[in-house]
């Protein structure tokens, strides 16, 4: 909805609520998470909170996308 663009932008700026595993734990788990993801296993169950962090942290999100793309390559 175009008239809610500002609200959507604000929601993105404020991230999601709830616990967040943080950048260090994200990096520690990234390789396992991506491999599980590529095998279509339940990566989020194996690493709870990872998906939320990847959505809220652009740098970690980019590194997830890169590792996934490299392995898929």
């Amino acid at each position, binding site marked *: 909805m*175009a*008239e*809610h*663009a*500002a*609200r959507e*932008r*604000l*929601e993105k*700026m*404020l*991230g*999601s*609520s*709830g616990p*967040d595993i*943080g*950048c*260090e734990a994200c*990096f520690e788990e*990234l*390789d*396992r998470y*991506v*491999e599980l993801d590529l095998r279509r296993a339940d990566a989020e169950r194996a690493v709870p909170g990872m998906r939320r962090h990847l959505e*809220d*942290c*652009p*740098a970690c999100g*980019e*590194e997830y996308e*890169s*590792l996934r*793309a*490299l*392995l898929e*390559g």
Partner: protein
Amino acid sequence: MQPPPRADAESRAWISDLSASGVRRDDAIARLHALLLRAARFEVGRRRFLHAELRGDVVDDIALEAADDAVVAVLTRLADFRGESRFTTWAYKFALLEAAVKLRRRAWEGREIPLDPEQWEVFGSGEKSPPERAEQAELLDALRSAVDTVLTPHQRTVFGALALNGVPIDVLAERLGTSRGALYKTLHDARRKLRSHLAAVGLAIGDSDQGRRRG
């Protein structure tokens, strides 16, 4: 060093070779460098279009530096490999991280980082309908008020740079002499305080369980 028991055969061989001595270890390090250089080049290739101002030879240097640093990181942290992924996947992430961080920092070299709230470009410019402008003005007022009311000066700086102005977290960490993890924690705490404050004034945001905007 003993390979972790759960590691696959190829990963165990990597750990054994890198933990050996002499020619066997040297050969393994050379193979590791080649592997990580491929990953670093892959990463700078993916991000090349975002950094059109960087010359080709500069980008190549960044990939090589990233591979060099990633090899050091992998060798330093070899005991941390738990065998929960393939060794190559585990090692790749160091090269991708090094390449991404170096690219972001190089792209921001010499650039001023907007830390002053007055420089916030929160919702961008461009054509907007009257309802859009009204909603934007209302949200902007609420956000400014929340930032001034509930955030500490450090949280204001971090939130302003990262969430409002899109400064890369590694770049800000370097400028402020802190770590990416510490900055993200600050950002997370600031976001939580802002969401809570906005919800209290009737502007529940995102996936808060307090529901959408009242009225």
